[in-house]
């Protein structure tokens, strides 16, 4: 109070910390605009001497990014659809009752959340191979990735349903609604925002899905953008400006959506993840 400059000092420090933390993102954009020789300069320059945006259309065409990104969208949409349709109902029931069975169900879902994808991929691949699902590789990836993302979705959306007052649903039932009617006309609309945020998070994370797609999809025309990036990324890569241009095209839509919805995403996460 008697030191009015302190908040502004803290703000300056916060901005400096954010700048340090977000430096890798800045570096991605700057590197993509550098020319070949400038990339390997030592010490590196922090601003491109001659920015060259033509790398973006070049990379887009040369790496057939249109196909890759389209496949990513298809896979992420499929995963999100399955997760939302099956996960929302499950979360609703888990939020509505309190009993030993519900606790067991919740515990099972939390345990599924713990399973690493690298543990699941071997049996999934061999199993899919046996039932012939590998002939539809994108479907196989969608099914596997939906099972992976559903537990987290259920945990978050359950917290949203917990915050919907029980009395509203009971009033609708007293007024003659059936359970189905009350669910669709009262409970779902009230929880809409929370479900939407979680659906967007699911979409974002499956948009970057890598391990299942890499292992299951062999046909280049069906692979998502993450596998396309891995095609020229590794310990010995040198083609840095096109790698960075590719990455920039890939993540800029995600970053834009995130910055626009930041407040809602953060509040959706914080209400659910800790309960």
């Amino acid at each position, binding site marked *: 109070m008697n030191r009015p400059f302190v908040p502004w000092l803290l703000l300056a420090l916060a901005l400096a910390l954010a700048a340090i933390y977000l430096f890798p993102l800045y*570096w991605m954009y700057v590197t993509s605009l550098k020319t070949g020789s400038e990339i390997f300069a030592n010490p590196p320059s922090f601003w491109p001497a001659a920015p060259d945006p033509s790398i973006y259309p070049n990379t887009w065409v040369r790496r057939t990014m249109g196909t890759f990104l389209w496949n990513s969208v298809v896979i992420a949409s499929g995963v999100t659809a399955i997760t939302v349709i*099956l996960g929302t109902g499950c979360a609703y029931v888990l939020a509505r009752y309190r009993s030993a069975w519900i606790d067991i169900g919740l515990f099972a879902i939390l345990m599924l959340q713990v399973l690493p994808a690298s543990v699941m991929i071997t049996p999934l691949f061999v*199993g899919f191979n046996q039932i012939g699902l590998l002939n539809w590789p994108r479907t196989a990836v969608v099914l596997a990735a939906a099972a992976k993302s559903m537990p987290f979705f259920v945990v978050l959306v359950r917290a949203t349903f917990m915050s919907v007052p029980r009395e509203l649903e009971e009033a609708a039932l007293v007024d003659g609604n059936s359970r189905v009617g009350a669910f669709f006309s009262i409970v779902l609309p009230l929880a809409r925002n929370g479900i939407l945020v979680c659906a967007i998070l699911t979409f974002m994370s499956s948009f970057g899905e890598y391990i299942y797609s890499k292992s299951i999809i062999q046909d280049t025309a069906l692979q998502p953008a993450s596998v396309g990036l891995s095609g020229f990324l590794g310990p010995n890569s040198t083609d840095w400006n096109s790698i960075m241009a590719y990455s920039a095209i890939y993540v800029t839509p995600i970053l834009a959506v995130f910055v626009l919805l930041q*407040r809602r995403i953060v509040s959706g996460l914080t209400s659910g993840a800790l309960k």
Partner: protein
Amino acid sequence: MSRILNSMRDGVGFDLILVGAAMVFLVALAGLPLVYNVVMSFQQVDMFTLGSLVRPFAGFTNYVAVVQQPEFWLVTKNTLIFVFASMAGQFIIGFALALFFAQNFPGAATIRGLFLVSWVMPGLVVGGIWSFILAGDYGVLNAILKGLGLTQATIFWKSDPNFSLWSVVIANIWLGLAFNMLLLSVGLAAIPRDLYEAAELDGANAFQRFWTITLPMMRPTIGAVLSLGLIGTLQQFDLFPALTEGGPANTSNVAGYWAWQMSFQLYDFAKGATISVMMFVLVLFASVVYVRSTRHEVRG
């Protein structure tokens, strides 16, 4: 018949359908594969038997073979180092940032929210960016370290066996830091202000306030954050193919990536399944320890 239909529309049947559909899906695509994984680890799996369900029983030969691999103990050690170093880094830096952003200044919540972009980015892209930052000759991290006078020599982060694992750890800390910070911030915000005011009146300094109020009040949050950090770190996969591919000579390989290499690069699915089972036992052990410790806490 009509009673069942009625119950589906307006009774317990409705709940059972909703929860049942999700459970059937999860059992089919997560529960069954898990069981199948254990079965495969006791079978002899090769290209000829890959398509059939009944394979020659192998007993514990797969387990013996995995343990006898020359890289087994190296990978085990790397996995433990990777998990503990990543968790420690994410938690300590995340806690420090959460404490900082709990101060009262304009824009604190918005700037804190921006940190979370690392969490929504695809892991492979994060790995790619860090791969360039950590490059030996032209990497920007080496340039900064030299500029600050912290090191004279050029560190080959990705190809030096002493540093390769740490290059993945650094990228993983960056990736998970923001999520840790966010959850810890929620915990901090839930501590009543007047506790601090009372302690200040009693003459407690900042360190004493942290030690006697913040830490004890944060205990449940810290437990949850650490367990989520453990889960996230054990699941980390994308950074390895992007940064080091487990090399050089497996010095940066961990169990998850090793299992994938066995199955999908060497096509030895039995060994891949066996390593997966071992890793699953580790995950299970960790979560049981976590559940027990939190339960103990609640009982007091």
